[in-house]
């Protein structure tokens, strides 16, 4: 029952990409043409346990909203985004696509959240933030591929940094919800890494936790000043004294890379319109996010 309530709450909160919004700006966004270069697909799950997730996502037209979100991006070829049952939590992106978001991953986000916090607002924060992160992270892989972006560093980290940068381009509330929600998910899902684990292609959850926080603090040190290092013990994980001063440089570096290699494929007028839109509606913002 607890799981059902949490999942229902998550899926409700999940709608904050604004198609059915009562706000004027959201309606304006909803009227934006969907990207012809982004095709979407909801695959019916064979396992009934994923049915509520499938129904809710489809009902809320999540992928249709992603199509609108990606309108400014001038893609030279069609990109397909699919929601499906994969048999695993992730289905690695392969050149040419599609981008796949697995119902299993969404289920894991829900599970990790409700296992680690009973606070309803925090549950909403983590589930919303992490879902957005997962989508942006997967889409970043496709953008790297389609736009032939050179990748220095680990590709998984590069996708995280682009996701974090994207999260920072909207309102403070959107940035706080997505960044903090994502970071809390990585904090809660942190596992022990030993021996051969370090050969993994991806970074440990704890490193990803700091990577997201660092981009946020570097991009907006005022809004994220609560992440600044402070002396003495703290119940809240913060940036360390060694990392924090470097975050502005990290943010500027990924922004510069984005400007050099991705912005030439972005329609500036449509981007302004998308950025000005109210993506997080007031009644969908979790309380106590700061």
């Amino acid at each position: 029952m607890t799981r059902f309530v949490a999942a229902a709450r998550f899926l409700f909160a999940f709608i904050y990409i604004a198609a059915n919004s009562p706000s004027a700006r959201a309606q304006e966004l909803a009227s934006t043409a969907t990207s012809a270069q982004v095709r979407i697909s909801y695959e019916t799950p064979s396992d009934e346990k994923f049915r509520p997730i499938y129904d809710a996502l489809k009902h809320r037209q999540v992928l249709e909203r992603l199509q609108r979100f990606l309108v400014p991006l001038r893609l030279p070829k069609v990109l397909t985004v699919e929601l499906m049952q994969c048999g695993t939590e992730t289905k690695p992106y392969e050149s040419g696509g599609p981008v796949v978001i697995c119902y299993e991953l969404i289920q894991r986000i829900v599970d990790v959240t409700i296992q680690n916090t009973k606070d309803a607002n925090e549950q909403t924060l983590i589930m919303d933030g992490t879902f957005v992160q997962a989508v942006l992270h997967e889409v970043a892989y496709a953008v790297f591929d389609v736009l032939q972006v050179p990748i220095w560093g680990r590709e998984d980290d590069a996708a995280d940094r682009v996701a974090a940068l994207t999260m920072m381009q909207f309102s403070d509330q959107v940035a706080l919800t997505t960044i903090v929600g994502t970071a809390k998910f990585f904090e809660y899902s942190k596992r022990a890494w030993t021996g051969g684990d370090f050969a993994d292609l991806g970074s440990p959850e704890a490193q990803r936790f700091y990577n997201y926080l660092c981009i946020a603090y570097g991009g907006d040190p005022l809004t994220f000043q609560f992440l600044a290092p402070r002396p003495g013990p703290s119940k809240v994980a913060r940036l360390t004294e060694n990392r924090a001063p470097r975050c502005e440089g990290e943010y500027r570096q990924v922004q510069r890379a984005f400007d050099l290699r991705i912005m030439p494929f972005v329609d500036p007028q449509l981007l302004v319109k998308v950025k000005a839109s109210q993506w997080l509606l007031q009644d969908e913002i979790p309380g106590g996010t700061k």
Partner: protein
Amino acid sequence: MSRTRATRCPPAVVLGLALVTSVVLATPVVAQTWESIPANPRVEIEYVAPTSAQFESVYASLKQRKILEELQRLLAPLRLPHPLRLVTKQCGQVNAFYSPSSRSLTICYELVAEIIDSAPQNVSEDGFITRQAAIIGNLIGVLLHEGGHMLFDMLDVPVFGREEDAADQTASFIALQFNKDVARTIVKGFVYFWAREKDPAVSASMSVWSDEHGMASQRMYSALCLAYGGDPQTFQEFIDRGWLPKKRADHCDQEFTQLKLAFADTVLPFIDQELMARVQQTQWLTADELK
């Protein structure tokens, strides 16, 4: 949520890839002495005398070995948009660093002393890594890593991933551009150094993961993976020794190809191909160092 995308080879980079392929893995035909290569005119060098007597021998060794003069020539093919200073000095800390504000690359005597101290007396316990390889491989690895930071700054390279990992990739990639003996020596230096470093304990607090650098084992596995991906024949022995888990090894060709594409796209346009070919044919390490 970890994976690598399947390698793509879009037409737009085919030419670049062809160029870099002609550079990468080219087998030297006629070895030249490094003195025959012209020094990069934009690169200045300086050995700063140490204030502490304990680093006199390190200072003298580096000067005698002409390490900076060699580096000046190793960098000959690079068309640098700004002057670069290469400095060895006593820093008061064990470190090597590139400074974007002064556009200088500094090797601290403290670091060189530590590299020398940590090297095996004769050979590593498994008999695979000699003292000379551990020292010179490690030192070159550090230089190439910092050289990576220099490239990213000087050439305004778009770095989407973490810069410290990217600098490690630069070191591995450049290490593979010479003959197999040089590549093996440098990679052995990497492995020896990172294998000695400790990863965080399971019980360690969250903050130990906050650093912008990867953990020792991550860095070691990445270096091994790029070496194996770039030259599986030469580095098969490293894999056979169980140094790199098979799960990672299976993706190494893709990782190397992705890096090669990034290099071709962002750095190769600043390289003089003819000079590069000469540099590749040069014997940079002594016979002793290659043992």
